[in-house]
């Protein structure tokens, strides 16, 4: 039974990249910053977990306890030092800045850690059920994604700052009138965005090896997912991730594996033509 297996795999991978895209869409929604360096923060997280494992024997899942606060702190610093200057500036400006940041991060990693690929020799038993085999590491990735998504939803719905983030996403000026400090909201959401990226890095190192330049692929993937789901919509990002994951996996049944990556992009272009604001764009979550 290949088809159900591919669908399950697609959903699992899609959830992880959906969560990654969640971090991007949060930043995008709040401050309209197009963060090209988003994927490079994944690389930073993956390298952190790699070194924690190699030098101190810390299991990558345990290293989440480090990469999450580390990413959050890094995000705050990057926001205060750099991104603050381009928040709400024209898109090209933030694009330019974060491209510079991306170049800086990947070339720093390259010079610090050499261009060699890094991976951790950890494996998990796979899960069998209903005739479907799900690799253990992929199951962990999916479980982690669900936890993050649920926590984030609770945060956005239940807490003051979460509500503030939603308010700023929907209408910055109205939020200002309501006494919300958009600057603080931007700071917070950038911190969360980067923390999500670095923590996804800790999971990614379980699935594959990384190199200093692998971040670009993650950025591209998150972009597509975010737009597919609709800008600034967390639920849309998850849906978009799952759609891309399933489409890519199922398409590989019928098409040459080298062609399948294009399917996601073609789906996106078609969706945009039919519905210019994405799948979930019309009902901001």
């Amino acid at each position: 039974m290949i088809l159900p297996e591919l669908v399950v795999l697609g959903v699992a991978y899609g959830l992880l990249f959906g969560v990654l895209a969640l971090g991007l869409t949060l930043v995008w929604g709040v401050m309209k910053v197009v963060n090209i360096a988003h994927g490079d923060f994944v690389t930073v997280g993956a390298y952190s977990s790699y070194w924690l494992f190699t030098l101190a024997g810390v299991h990558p899942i345990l290293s989440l306890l480090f990469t999450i606060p580390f990413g959050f702190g890094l995000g705050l610093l990057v926001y205060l030092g750099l991104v603050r200057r381009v928040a709400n500036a024209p898109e090209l400006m933030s694009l330019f800045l974060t491209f510079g940041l991306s170049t800086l991060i990947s070339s720093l990693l390259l010079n610090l850690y050499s261009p060699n690929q890094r991976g951790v020799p950890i494996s998990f038993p796979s899960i069998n059920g209903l005739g479907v085999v799900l690799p253990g590491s992929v199951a962990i990735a999916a479980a982690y994604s669900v936890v993050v998504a649920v926590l984030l939803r609770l945060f956005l719905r239940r807490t003051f700052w979460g509500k503030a983030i939603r308010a700023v996403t929907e209408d910055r000026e109205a939020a200002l009138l309501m006494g919300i400090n958009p600057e603080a909201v931007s700071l917070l959401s950038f911190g969360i965005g980067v923390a999500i990226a670095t923590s996804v890095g800790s999971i990614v190192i379980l699935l594959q090896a990384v190199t200093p330049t692998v971040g670009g692929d993650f950025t591209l993937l998150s972009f597509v997912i975010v737009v597919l789901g609709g800008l600034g919509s967390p639920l849309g990002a998850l849906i978009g991730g799952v759609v891309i994951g399933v489409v890519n996996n199922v398409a590989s049944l019928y098409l040459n594996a080298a062609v399948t990556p294009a399917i996601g992009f073609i789906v996106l272009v078609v969706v945009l033509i039919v519905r210019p604001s994405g799948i979930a764009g019309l009902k901001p979550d």
Partner: protein
Amino acid sequence: MGTEGESYKRTRRLDAAILAFVVSKARRALGRAAAAGIVIILIAVAVGGYYYYQTLPTAPTGPSTIKVGMTMPLSGSLEADGVMSLDGLKLWAHNVNASGGIYVSSLGRKVPVQLIYYDDTSATSVVSTDYQQLVAQGVNFLVAPYSSGLTLAAAPIAEANHLLLLSHGGASDSIWTKGYKYVVGVLSPGSKYMLPVIDMLKNLNSSAPLKVAFFYGNDAFSISVVNGASAYVNSTSGFNIVYKQSYDESATSYTAQLSQIAALNPDVLLGGAHFVDGETIMKNIQSLGLHFKMVALLVAPDDPHFLSDLGSLAGYVVAPSQWESSLDFSSFTSYFGNITSSQFFTQFNSTYKMPPNYEAAEAYNTGLVLQRGIIDSGSLNSTVVRNQLSSENFYTFYGKFQLGPTGIQAGHTMVVMQWQSGAKKVVWPKPVATSALVYPSP
């Protein structure tokens, strides 16, 4: 609402007004553009002047160094390979210069080697620009960048300027089908990579035909490897190709395709492309709980990191290899170079704090080939050295060197290695094997 005539006149008047507006704007803007133009010209002159002084002849009598020019992908998608190759060449230059340089008989003295290298960022447009500049800087010889695509971008410049271009990391056979005379291959071409693996399988003498699945990267190198291999498989009996597809190397997982392949129940999985994809394939195979009697991948298993990244997952994976540190050719006649495989391994490891892979050995060997050509021809002229190389036939620590008519490497042969209990073992061909093949893998 206005007649046609009126509106026409109005349009005319408006157009005149626009024209006047445009002209007045243009005059002012021209002034501004001129000021900016002058700034640009100053920059251009400064850049021009800089290069003019760079290209001024430095010494009037004979070259003080042998200039070997190259670019390497030190950033971008091929950076890992580029750095490895550059390190190999740097080690060669270091060793040559430690002994005073290369003896050039036409000059009657030893001349030290100077490597001139730039980062081509894995982009052909930069390769093209940089090689032209290397030519303008008066290099004596050129070394190609890593990878077939980048080598193909450097080739026309070498050809047009009659400079020797030594290819150490461009394996695609297509490099030697274009009629370039100055492009010389040091490594075995792609079409020959998998042939010893297939010979080895044939030697197993299995009763039923072996079912083979090809799953490989969609790039010039991997395609030429698999095309060469599948043609060879088709020309011999005892094999049955059940699957043949290429994949996108930037994919984050191959679980979908691997599940499909496993459903076809092949004995042997052949393919791969580079580092990260090769490791991902192994991780996916393990996590899906799949088992093949043999997995043979390109490039990735040969890298020492393969073991540290994958641990026990690396077990019994097979790879074709250009070179292994256990190979010893020092007893072969016409052996060249003051270094053996194990010496190279030790020296590289202590210099760069990491073990060399075959890319580093290829690059070091490229230096040796150039050295041999210069010594035997006694000249620093690229054309003379190129002609000399066509008649050479010798061994180095890397293996045999002998050129085919187009400049393709015909003497060197691949070996097959297998990870056994955390160590790389050469398992084929039998005369150089350090261990027997474990098949089927447990």
